[in-house]
């Protein structure tokens, strides 16, 4: 091979520009595919039934905001409240359980603690359908079916393996010197956890909270089984069953689906920044 400037091996500028255009086009198409169902949902939610059946993709003949009011009347307002209770409860519970556990794994190791942590993390693999039958029987025997506490505990349990895994990794990142200084001053483990560890991992706690909240908000299987009364359903379970009942009034179902997607999209808009600030906070401390 003769000595050549490396630059000559790159494609010509025109060719590269063409390549760039093609790449942009593919990304654009992928974006349309990603967003289309969401757009379709909103597009359908604002029109009336006949209009939808006439031309699902055409311009709405008239805009029917009352679909949203109707959807809220069809229990969706109630379900939003239920989903919020269940989500907030489960996220708080799993945080309260997993942070001290993670602290113990990192700072108070004992014989077999590595194995126990491995077991906890391994539990992530087990699908909820496996636990569901016995859990239902148990909650039924305890009279907790149709009560939120059963679902909150079940969600917290299912979110626990991931949460403790994530918290262990963050708490491991706290330098030893900080603990030793506190320990010399006679601080107890409870105090160290509360006034040193928790503030330091606060960004991670927010990230974990958002991730867990999205999971809990979107969960369907356990909600369908554990909350069977119409007025105690979560939003996802309610919507899934509303869809089964209203095969003809698709705009109504779409209005309900739109209402349920809005908080998530807001969390996502806001959450992306929280993720970033968590990352930056870590970088600054370094």
């Amino acid at each position: 091979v003769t000595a050549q400037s490396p630059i000559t091996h790159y494609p010509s500028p025109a060719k590269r520009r063409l390549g760039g255009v093609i790449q942009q086009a593919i990304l654009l198409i992928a974006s349309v595919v990603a967003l289309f169902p969401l757009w379709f949902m909103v597009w359908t939610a604002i029109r009336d039934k006949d209009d939808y059946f006439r031309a699902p993709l055409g311009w709405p003949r008239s805009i029917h905001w009352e679909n949203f009011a109707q959807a809220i009347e069809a229990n969706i307002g109630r379900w939003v409240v239920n989903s919020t209770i269940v989500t907030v409860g489960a996220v708080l519970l799993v945080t309260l359980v997993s942070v001290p556990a993670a602290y113990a794994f990192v700072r108070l190791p004992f014989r077999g603690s590595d194995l126990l942590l491995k077991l906890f993390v391994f539990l992530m693999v087990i699908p909820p359908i496996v636990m569901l039958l016995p859990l239902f029987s148990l909650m039924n025997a305890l009279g907790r079916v149709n009560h939120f506490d059963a679902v909150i505990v079940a969600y917290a349990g299912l979110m626990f393996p991931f949460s403790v895994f994530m918290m262990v990794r963050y708490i491991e990142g706290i330098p030893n010197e900080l603990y030793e200084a506190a320990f010399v001053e006679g601080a107890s483990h409870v105090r160290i956890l509360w006034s040193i560890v928790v503030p330091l991992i606060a960004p991670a706690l927010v990230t974990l909270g958002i991730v867990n909240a999205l999971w809990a908000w979107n969960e369907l299987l356990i909600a369908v089984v554990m909350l069977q009364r119409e007025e105690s359903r979560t939003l996802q379970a309610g919507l899934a069953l509303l869809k089964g009942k209203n095969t003809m009034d698709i705009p109504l179902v779409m209005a309900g689906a739109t209402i349920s997607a809005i908080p998530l999209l807001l969390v996502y808009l806001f959450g992306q920044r929280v993720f970033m600030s968590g990352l930056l906070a870590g970088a600054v401390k370094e």
Partner: protein
Amino acid sequence: VVANEQGSSLALGQQSGVRLPLPDASQTSKRNRPRWSHGTGWYALVFLLPSLVLVGLIFIYPVYSLVRMSLYQSLGSLSLYVGLDNYRVALNDPLFLISVRNNLVLMVCVPVMIVIALGLALLLYEQRKSAPVYRFILFVPYIISITVSGIAFSAMLTKNGALNQMLEAIGLGALRQDWLGDPKIALLSVGGVIIWREAVLGIVLFVARMLTLSTEPLEAAMVDGATRWRAHWNVTLPQMRGIIGFYAITSVITVAVWTFSYVFVMTNGGPGNATMTADLYIYQNAFTVAQMNLAAAAATLVLIAAIAVVVVAGLLGRAGRSRGVEGSRSRAGGRKA
């Protein structure tokens, strides 16, 4: 000190049904272990007690109870030990076999998801300037619940739905289908929706991994005359083996045992039983036809399958590494800086 790009992708990864640790999970570093140790046992117990109770209640007791349930037959308040009879019934139930077959057919989604996710991740890597916008958009399918997108897709995929109308509009009317109503293609349509959503996890994981790679080998390959894509094929891809493997395992578990939300919302197993899957089979047996013991046997088989996938994947991973395959494992997990 705290997070890096991988940490966030890991967190985002939790959005899918399956939540697996990244490859080097659970290997806690020993570097920060405390030096004192007297009297810590009680503290450890107190700090771990709530989690032991929770895990016992939600995992240990149910698994024990499930296996027990699968060995008995309830008749009213009576419970008879029947050994493996329920398993025999399940394995001879044509519907269960159809369900398992459907889950296996859905496995074809996994390679498709990997290819799509890799392609889009590479494009995002190449088009760095506009990547944040696209990344934001491409992640949306993962934010919307399966219930909501399932509702939208079932409306779009009907005979007179949006998809068929679009096909007509662009002159491809011949491709019109009753996407969810035709037993021959309903399962593939469900698979398409699964790909639409689950490929997102792959994109996120792959982009995060690519951003940790050094650009030098890639540039060196191009200096040696390789085209950009050739260089990606020869240089970038081999370094991504670990994370691709991780994503593949996660996806296999998703299509094997986490399809409930998709089929429950879109088809409820129909038409006929064309889209019946194992977890829907268990759900229906337990809660609509009250065959709890049969459902328990099927659920136990699902549990065994899920564990088997992870164990086999772990063994394959170990074998791959000991053959000296690119050791991306240690880096894929994104150790803290």
